């Protein structure tokens, strides 16, 4: 797997939220790196689906969930930047 850039992961996340904006009643504006995912209009359970989709998109297996568990991170506490950085880190590990 090739390295994943921050911009690429941001783009994927942005596309997901653009798809969801009608249902989430959000304005589809910029995703700020320090925005908490849970504050973007999703139910907390939907964040699990978001992570699943990112894992599938980047062929990460369940590495993202594992990483969060190992670091004792809760999805509801994670920001846009946190999740993107985690994806980028896993991508670089996989390509190393």
């Amino acid at each position: 797997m090739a390295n994943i850039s921050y911009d690429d992961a941001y783009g994927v996340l942005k596309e997901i939220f653009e798809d969801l904006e009608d249902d989430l009643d959000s304005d589809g504006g910029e995703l700020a790196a320090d925005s908490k995912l849970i504050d973007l209009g999703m139910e907390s359970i939907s964040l699990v689906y978001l992570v699943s989709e990112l894992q599938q998109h980047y062929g990460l297996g369940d590495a993202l969930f594992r990483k969060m568990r190992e670091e004792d991170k809760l999805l509801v506490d994670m920001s846009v930047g946190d999740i993107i950085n985690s994806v980028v880190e896993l991508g670089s590990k996989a390509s190393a």
Partner: protein
Amino acid sequence: MTKREIKTLLIGLDGATYDLLDPLVEEGIMPNLGKIMKEGARGILKSTIHPLTPPAWTTMTTGRTPGNHGVFDFIRVDRSGSKPNYTLATSADVMVPTIWQIADREGLRATTLNFPVNFPAKPINGVVIPGYVPWSYLGRAIHPRPVFKMLKEKGVFKASEMSTDWQHERKAVQGLGENQLEDWVNFHIVREKRWQDILLTLMEEEPCELMAVLFDGVDRIQHLCYHLIDRETRDQYQTEDAKKTTELALQYYRDVDNYIAQMIEKAGPQAQVMIVSDHGFTRSGSRIFYANTWLEQKGWLDWIEGTPMDDQGRVALDENTEASTLIDWETTKAYALSSSSNAIFIRQSNAPGEPGVAPADYEAFRDKMIEALYDLKDPDTGKPVIKHVFKREDAFPGAYTDRAPDITLMLHDYSFLSVLRADAPIKDRQVPYATHHPDGIFVATGPGFKKETALDDMYIADVAPTAIYSLGLSVPSDMEGKVCTAAYDDAYLAENALTYADVEALKGDADMSALDAEAQEQIKERLKSLGYL
């Protein structure tokens, strides 16, 4: 280009049982289904050893047993870390191809609506709208993306009215008050209408050779309202709330009956139709088995300090709190994480001095636990609580046995265990409840199927190869189920030779496993010995 015709229409009714459907037909509530059952072929469809929605539907749609497809519960338990963790099972956990993936590989199109463990959608030529996706993610979950926009433009996609509300589900699993049941049924009446509208729209806009839809309100409503639907018991409940709920629940079945007729008409006279359920249903007994509390009494589990006692007859925590947060992982050797799986996991220590059972002691520890479970009696009745205890290698043999729980319980009343702490391991249930039973339904109608035929019992894994045969394709040779040739008339079988495909030729997923003939035979023997074949 010639418009594609539907060859196979698979209608799933989650948890449907002849015990309710036959009386509903007799009462005139489901005339269309009654006509189909009378004029077509019908039989009992035996579910997976633990009759639960995710493993059972995955077996139904892959033709493989849970030990070979990898799905055992709504959750996937990860035991690799210092303490067990779990997350929702996803399509990544399904290690073998589904019938829609097989159809896709053979150049056909498929549509699949509302089936569990289908998220994230594995891309196919056709449409996938996975089930068990919360409303705020459902739109995104649709494959391919243009279909989402088309359904929105046509006004038939309304996420909040057709998705799974997990918090709502959690409450419902615990049982609802009589005055809340009406809302519960109403929610599912609206929900099924949405799925029906989408299916009919897709039949028009995105025609496929294989169309499959799952109506899961049947299961949800029966869990809480079985006693109000069952002709034998409904008259015992005469409050205004109960009578209103009964009327509404019967309306739900009338609606589903109409939807079946509409789907079949829309599919066209050439379509072979199979109406199936992943398991049956029955009334639960009046008692709840608190498995973790029993394990605590045996000295195999400790709660973290301050874990509250359940005094409300609950089987799991409300909302999204994990049961694992209640357990002291410094000392616990065995535990149940989900009510749905009826499973107990045994923790093996990774090194001397670490928590768990030493690997060398595992077999003896498990045997001792099984013996204790069989000995367990309800102190009020003196009757045994556990009907069967399945070891994972017996219940779930295959490539993914190691993912399965160490033991799976079948309670005498088929009910689900509670994972909560209580002041006794067996306590009274507080509201009427119904649970899964191994006997589901299989009804077939359309050209090629026998008429007015009662079939011998089938196994749930038989549906996938039957659907593949119905599509005119060769059946993958590693499917553990077999084509239900007994449902087809002789002329059809003569004109449509049953052929098998080399699994290697179909292989696409990296983890797709082929069993050698000996392994397949072993699995069949085990299933036979357990009464499933």
